[in-house]
């Protein structure tokens, strides 16, 4: 993220303009004053605008890492955190001996924490257009395998018995894994039914 130079009649006005343009908050800004405003003769001849240069203290990946490190410290959990920046997302991964509490039952804590991270990052960086994806001890990867296996075995049953079957409620990401796994499975079709957060995938004969 780069710096931004702005001018205004007062210092506050110039700083505010720069912060809005960068989409960051004052707490996360380094403000350099280039020109102090000054009143000219009679208040209008030779007035000089304030000029400031503003840049963020931490860029988004750094902020996310520090935020998670502090969170783990307050939770009393030992963990190693990495944040990788991709074109469309920030990947945060946590590894450690005792990080299971961060996953929770069926990944509920993991998903809720990921939700909070996405909102925190949007609040801190209004212009950030990247999703935050959080994983703990490769839970998402392992879950993907479990869901794919489940999809295959239910699909087999449905195509043998000819009755549709609904799976348990899942998050959009999890439902997507099922749909993709069965995309080209012969003789069956998949769709989602119900309202969030109880929306489920239904596997039906074609």
């Amino acid at each position, binding site marked *: 993220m780069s710096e931004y130079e702005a001018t205004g009649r007062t210092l506050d006005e110039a700083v505010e303009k720069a912060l809005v343009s960068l989409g960051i908050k004052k707490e996360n800004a380094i403000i350099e004053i280039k020109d102090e405003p000054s009143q000219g003769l009679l208040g209008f001849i030779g007035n000089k605008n304030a000029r400031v240069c503003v840049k963020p203290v931490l860029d988004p990946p750094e902020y996310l890492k520090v*935020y998670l490190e*502090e*969170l783990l410290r*307050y939770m009393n959990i030992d963990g190693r955190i990495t944040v990788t920046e991709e074109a469309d997302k920030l990947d945060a991964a946590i590894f450690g001996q005792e990080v299971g*509490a961060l996953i929770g039952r069926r990944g509920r*804590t993991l998903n*809720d*924490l990921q*939700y909070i991270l996405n909102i925190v990052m949007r609040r*801190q960086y209004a212009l950030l257009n990247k999703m935050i994806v959080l994983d703990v001890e490769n839970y998402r990867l392992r879950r993907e395998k479990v869901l794919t296996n489940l999809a295959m075995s239910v699909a087999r049953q449905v195509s043998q018995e000819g009755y549709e079957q609904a799976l348990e409620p899942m998050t959009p990401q999890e439902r997507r894994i099922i749909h993709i796994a069965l995309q080209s499975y012969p003789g069956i079709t998949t769709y989602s039914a119900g309202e969030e957060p109880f929306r489920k995938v239904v596997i039906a004969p074609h």
Partner: protein
Amino acid sequence: MKQLLEHIAKALVDEPDHVEVRQVESERLIMLELRVAPEDMGKIIGKQGRIAKAIRTVVSAGAVKNDKRVVVEIVQ
């Protein structure tokens, strides 16, 4: 526990200086009262309470170790 909730709440609001958490502890229960600036209430609760629910999940996960139930109250 108090610090955990403060850490989460402060990053969500516009006025972090107005975030205040009071911790009341009994034998089996930790009660956390969260106060934020009135304008920030919506930012901490979210649509249909979704943010508040997520905060509760994460704070509860932080309490697993000390064997007590945690209740987060958002107070006006």
